[in-house]
């Protein structure tokens, strides 16, 4: 049996497509082994690094990772905590211990802390192999979100929206004077003046639409300047 890679580097593959043949290759993220073949788990772009076959996903919902900051919505109040929808295939649980540093007496009505439909910024503290997700509210910037509006974008665009060291989202914040929180799960929260919120939302949607094109920072800066009149382009930013 010959051992070889069956696809070109950077090729787009669909789930189930064979990527490599032979036991000397190792399945990386987004791929799995079936017999002596390595198959694609998701729609994405292949990259072969040495003997490791990796897949960069191009679509799909959020898959939870430890230490990610996400925006969740309370979908159930449990006996000892809350169940949150974090826009992933699996819901997350926040226990009392992780919810607040306040003392919560036994038998207290938990809805007075977080009720159904409330949204919170939280951090993923544990993901088991069975995809049981624990989140916590203990940490800087983790809080309940009051007012404002939410949009949902593909979690794969989140790194582009945030930009290098938060430069992209910082630019939008500066131009629109809106508060913006971007969850790694693709839920984004905005709060500010109504007309500025619209501009901020449109800027984020523009980033998502044009994420694959170059010179994005400049185009977003131009867009923001045109819409708000605020020149936010940092010196020589490209």
């Amino acid at each position, binding site marked *: 049996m010959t051992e070889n890679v069956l696809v070109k580097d950077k090729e787009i593959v669909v789930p189930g497509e064979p990527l490599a043949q032979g036991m000397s290759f190792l399945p990386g993220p987004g791929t799995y082994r079936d017999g002596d073949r390595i198959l694609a788990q998701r729609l994405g772009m292949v990259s072969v690094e040495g003997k490791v076959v990796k897949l960069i996903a191009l679509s799909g919902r959020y898959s939870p990772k430890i230490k990610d900051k996400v925006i969740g919505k309370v979908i159930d109040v449990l006996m000892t905590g809350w169940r949150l929808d974090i826009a992933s295939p699996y819901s997350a649980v926040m226990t009392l211990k992780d919810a607040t540093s306040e003392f919560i007496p036994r038998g207290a009505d938990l809805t007075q802390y977080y009720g159904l439909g409330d949204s919170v910024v939280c951090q993923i503290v544990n993901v088991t192999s069975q995809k049981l997700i624990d989140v916590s509210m203990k940490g800087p910037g983790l809080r309940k979100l009051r*007012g404002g*509006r939410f949009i949902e974008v593909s979690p794969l665009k989140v790194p582009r929206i945030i930009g290098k060291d938060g430069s992209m989202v910082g630019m939008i914040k500066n131009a629109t004077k809106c508060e913006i929180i971007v969850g790694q799960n693709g839920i984004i929260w905005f709060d500010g003046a109504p007309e500025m*919120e619209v501009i901020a939302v*449109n800027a984020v949607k523009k980033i998502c639409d044009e994420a694959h094109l170059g010179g994005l920072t400049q185009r977003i800066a131009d867009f923001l300047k045109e819409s708000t009149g605020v020149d936010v382009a940092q010196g020589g930013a490209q």
Partner: protein
Amino acid sequence: MYQELKAHVLKCLNKGVRYDGRKPLEFRPISIEYGVSASAEGSARVRIGGTEVIAGVKMETATPYPDTPNQGNLMVNVELLPMSNPKFETGPPGQQANEIARVVDRGIRESKCISVHDLVIKPGELVWGVNIDVCSLNDEGNLQDACALAAIAALKDARLPKVTEHDEVDYDAPKTDQKLPLARLPVEVTVIKVGDQFFVDPLSDEEMAIEARLTVGVTEKGTVCALQKGAEAPLSLEDLEKMVDIAVKIAPTLRNAL
């Protein structure tokens, strides 16, 4: 549950800005495509912004109802498909689908839009039965107005099929050139009330904050032909008058898209 959302929508409305930057009494762009289904006698696809529905008209020969021997039959069915909104389930139509179907039916029936007497083939024995089926393809808010517009567009597109000498419809033969006789073109506009603010064409987010809504069927003369009040909050007489005025003023925008 949606108190905070409602407060935020209201805050935006007080400044005269909608969630997508529109004015309160502005519709999203409307586009209509005719003849999207080959097997239907008439069909149309309506887009209002990101909201998308298709409607088909199917004609059949039928015996008239005993109480209306000289009128054709009209039936409207709305199906809200799960692919258009994760909240929709498969199975028998739910509350929202039933309501939309009834209100679309009411607009067409009570405006006397289809000249019912022209649908009679043999008085008391054989009439045309008109079935309108509307399906939602994508729900980004305001399905009600989109469905009503799609239904009327499909009716406008409809051509009668050929009838054999045994009074049966020959669906295999090409359709005749005869159009469905339409006396009027009613459109429906849903006016929303949140706080003391009125607006039309809600987005999905805004729909969750609705306190009261009024769907108004309007003919081209500006006559009101159907009404449907929804959601919890009561409406005063002044509110009602204001909302009907808004609907009558906005109706031509929808009709111009036809």
